[in-house]
């Protein structure tokens, strides 16, 4: 894995976008009719939620490639995206809670999307725990890839089951449609989070790859499983 500085540039750009989108959303976007200022939480909640699913989809892709082709690079990216995905899922749940309280008077409203995200925290968090307990790096890579595939396939099942389960009780839900005046801060923040996380995940993958290197260090395996561009011989 390389050591070029592009992740910093991309992440920095993402932070700038987030600053712009946040200022726009907090200071300049119009107030929503029913929800008032509380609606402004959406400018950070929706972008985080979108990107969480994107990051976990990327983790799934890494898992599939890792199982089919192997390679420490893909395992490193898997570790990075699962960790980032868990952090973002936790954030989505906290944001959703802070939105639910002033709106519905409860800290948790069992909204299907939010509840699915909560399940994701535990499902993918468990995979991080699994990685901690497997000492053999090859087994760790294969098993966590298997676990990611299994957990990701579960996502639509969890979502639909919670939705059916909830529909018998609930009328309220998180607003889906956002009128045009609110689009821009949303989009800017969405790209902001996206670029920030691309940079952060790329760096985190390098960390994982370097750790794998020192784990496997002398005797260095000669198998092609070790990706090229690993930084060469020390």
């Amino acid at each position: 894995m390389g050591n070029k500085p592009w992740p910093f540039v991309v992440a920095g750009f993402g932070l700038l976008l987030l600053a712009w989108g946040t200022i726009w959303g907090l200071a300049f976007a119009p107030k929503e009719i029913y929800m008032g200022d509380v609606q402004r939480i959406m400018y950070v909640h929706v972008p985080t939620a979108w990107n969480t699913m994107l990051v976990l989809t990327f983790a799934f892709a890494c898992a599939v490639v890792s199982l089919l082709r192997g390679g420490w690079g893909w395992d490193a990216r898997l570790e990075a995206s699962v960790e980032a995905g868990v952090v973002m899922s936790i954030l989505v749940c906290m944001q959703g809670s802070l939105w639910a309280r002033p709106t519905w008077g409860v800290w948790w409203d069992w909204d299907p999307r939010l509840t699915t995200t909560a399940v994701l925290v535990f499902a993918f968090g468990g995979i991080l725990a699994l990685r901690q307990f497997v000492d053999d790096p090859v087994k760790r890579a294969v098993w966590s890839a298997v676990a990611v595939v299994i957990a990701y396939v579960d996502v639509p099942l969890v979502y639909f089951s919670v939705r059916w389960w909830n529909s018998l009780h609930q009328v309220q839900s998180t607003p889906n449609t956002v009128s045009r005046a609110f689009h821009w801060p949303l989009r800017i923040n969405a790209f902001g989070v996206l670029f920030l996380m691309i940079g952060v995940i790329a760096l985190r993958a390098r960390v994982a790859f370097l750790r794998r290197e020192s784990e496997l260090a002398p005797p260095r395996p000669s198998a092609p499983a070790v990706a090229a561009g690993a930084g060469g011989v020390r």
Partner: protein
Amino acid sequence: MSPLGAALRKDLLLQWRTRAQFVAVFVFGASALLLFSFASGPDSGALRQHAAGFLWLGLLLSSTLALADSFESEMAQRALEGLLLLPADARALYYGKAIANVLQLTLLGAGLVPLMVVLYDVSTARVPALLGVIFLGAAGLSAPGTLYSAMTAQLRARNTLLPLLLFPLVVPALLGAVKATALLLLGDPMGQLGSWVSLLVAFDLVYWSLCGLLFERVVED
């Protein structure tokens, strides 16, 4: 005999020989049901409402013990490596073990039903349907459970990791099983049983195929 048949026969034989462990797991499940009623309070209305949930929670907790046990003998004396050396597909090993686990969990669930009837004051005339739902739910627990049990049996923290990995995964199966059971116990005026059973069947189909495919990677060396 086909590899699957041989594997299934091996696992059923194993379960028969370790039936004392099954009794212990059953007692564990039964005490869980008892504890739920203490936690809930003697309000018979609330107990009836939540009977299905308690049954499935009890079964879920017991399943972690039963599933972990199912690979214990394979780990002792490195029997698993011996099995994998045989010219049988790893998938046959998986399905044999998984089917044996479903049967054991179904038996467990069916055994807990009389206790549920007594403790929570519920009953149903639709006993075959109830057994069917228990079977489908057990199948949902068994498919990923057998795969993760094979994985965690090879690790130090196996007793913590198995439930940690399994519980979030089986949420759809749990929801489906609890709702279907509740409808059978408390009445189904709107005819929703079919949709919950479909959810269970969908979950089972997805995971029985996916885990069979992935099992080989979990036990390979």
